[in-house]
């Protein structure tokens, strides 16, 4: 049982590492998706272990949210690209201090 959670944890951390290290917004976004998926895995595993179904339901909502977020995020990335001509995270530096 813990194995699943450990795998979930590892994937979550890899996702976090990706967010931390990468500057390409698309890759960062994909890393975020990884993190969400890690949580999904955890939910399904726990739900299975506890003989419950609510975790699985949660997963469905996470997916919905992920989809919605993907739409908005990609929209913003596109808009950003249109304005700056790049999807480098560091170019978002107009607002500071």
């Amino acid at each position: 049982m813990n194995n699943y959670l450990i795998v979930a944890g590892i994937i979550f951390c890899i996702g976090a590492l990706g967010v931390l290290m990468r500057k390409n917004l698309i890759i960062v976004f994909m890393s975020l998706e990884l993190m969400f998926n890690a949580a999904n895995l955890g939910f399904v595993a726990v739900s299975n272990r506890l003989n419950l179904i609510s975790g699985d339901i949660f997963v469905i909502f996470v997916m919905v949210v992920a989809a919605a977020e993907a739409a908005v995020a990609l929209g913003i990335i596109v808009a950003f690209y249109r304005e700056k001509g790049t999807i480098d995270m560091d170019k978002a530096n107009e607002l500071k201090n």
Partner: protein
Amino acid sequence: MDFKTSITWLIPLFPFAGWLLWGLFGRYLKGFSGYLASAFIGISFILSVILFFIVAYSHGFTDTLYPWVHAGTLKVGVSAVIDRLSVIMLVMVTGVSTLVHIYSIGYMQDDKGFSRYFSFLNLFVFSMIMLVISNNVLLLYVFWEAVGFCSYILIGFWYEKKSASDAGKKAFIVNRVGDFGFATGIFLLFMTTKTLNYEKIFAMVPTMPTLTVTVIALLLFAGAVGKSAQFPLHVWLPDAMEGPTPVSALIHAATMVTAGVYMIVRFHVLFSYSPTASEVVLIVGTFTAFFAAFIALTQYDIKRIVAYSTVSQLGYMFMAVGIGSYTAGMFHLISHAIFKGLLFLTAGSVMHGLSGELDLRKMGGLYSKMKTTAITFIVGGLALSGIPPFSGFFSKDAILADVYNKGYYFAWAVGEITALMTAFYIFRLIFLAFFAESKVDKGLHVHESPKIMTIPMIIMAVLASTIGFLGIPPLNHSVFYKFLHVDFLNAKDFAPIVNNMPWYVLSSISVAAGLIGIYIAYLLYIKKAIDPEKIKNMFKPVYELSYNKVYIDEIYDFLIVKPMLVFFGFLWKIVDIKIIDGAVNGVAGAFGNFSVKARKIQNGMLMSYILTLSIGVAAVLFYYFIR
């Protein structure tokens, strides 16, 4: 209020009213205010005389006008004590004041501050009267300071002159130094006795520990040192001569400066229970007498010479009270008031005649041109030198005799030497001013003063030559002694008479000293038997010392004033601005610096924001680990 209390309160009322009237409406009264002021004081004088006789033929009394300060256990009223001591002072103060007022009408005639002058002169008289009659220490202290204030105002009367306003300020501040001691004495007195009323205090003195009494007495004496210009606080008096001359006569010779002596006499119970304190009084008095006379020897400013002689004569008075001879002290106080007042008035007359010239080196031969002035001046000089039958002879002799008879030989010797020096310097002045060949500017029209000035001078000269007879028969048998001694019965006889040298022996010595002094002056300045310059060169260092007033002012300046100013500057520039304010601004600045740092976290880089967030996550999770 019966008759005598009404009179008591009327005496200060007149000058008080005068102050307000001339102060507020002086500009409408013009020259008239001088006459009115003199009249007011004159009335006070007459009332004082009446009161004198009332007291002389019945007994003293106390009266409270209204309750004044009432806080906690401290209850003080505006109240008066009328006994023989205070009536004598009253008569003296109002009498001399009346004469000086009249004199001033002439002297200040053309001054544009005429009304202001009389206003403050009246205020001074009021304060002095209140000082004399006050029945508790607080009231005494109030008017003690008030006379100081009037002195400040009147010294700085011609404020446009920097030296005048400086002198006024100096007088006030030096007096404050003395008052600081005086105030502390009052605090201690109140702490020990829980009252400020004279009678209650005096009733408790015998039960108090000697040390306490000594400390209190010495602290009070500090006030007297300031007010009566004794060493080391004498520095203000010579400078005070920047004021109008009648002011010098009234305040800096006759009345205010004697307040210190009066105070000690008033507190005789306290002082007599502390031989140590009395001894200090004696030492300070003796030293000052000599010291001031020494400085007076070489001065050229006539008013300053007379001023130093005042300091010196006050020293004599302190000698007297220091050995418990309160009547002798008071006697000298009265006679000194008259002859010194006279000297100042005449000096003023000289100035008047010479259009304000004060330097001896620019005078000479005035006798022929202003006879009245000269003669009255000589009367004063003789009285000062202690030549019989002038008053100074009787009063000074009474002191010196007591000093000798009570066994203070050294003090006596110093007193005699001082007497010699006194005679010398005052006659040096007389000879140089009136008899030596004239060095007056040719263009100056030298003239005798108007009647309004000379008449008070003549009256005073007459008094100076006659008042001494109150002092016969000599010593403890005199009229004066018998009259006043009643008030001193409570005093402890701490310095009993140990010798019984006949009075005439001692008197002869004194007179001899005086005559020798006069003779030396005669030799030097009239006969020119000895060249003064030669002597000057012979004793160059001593001469310089005397001429520069023993450098006391310079020493004060160097040791106290300058270091203090540097220290204060340090406090302000370094401690206040750099350290305290610096700390405050430093804190503010530190926040500014933090802000710069904090804003670096917010550098606009998404990467670093993610990093911050992750660090937060790691830290929060770590908390669980170390919990």
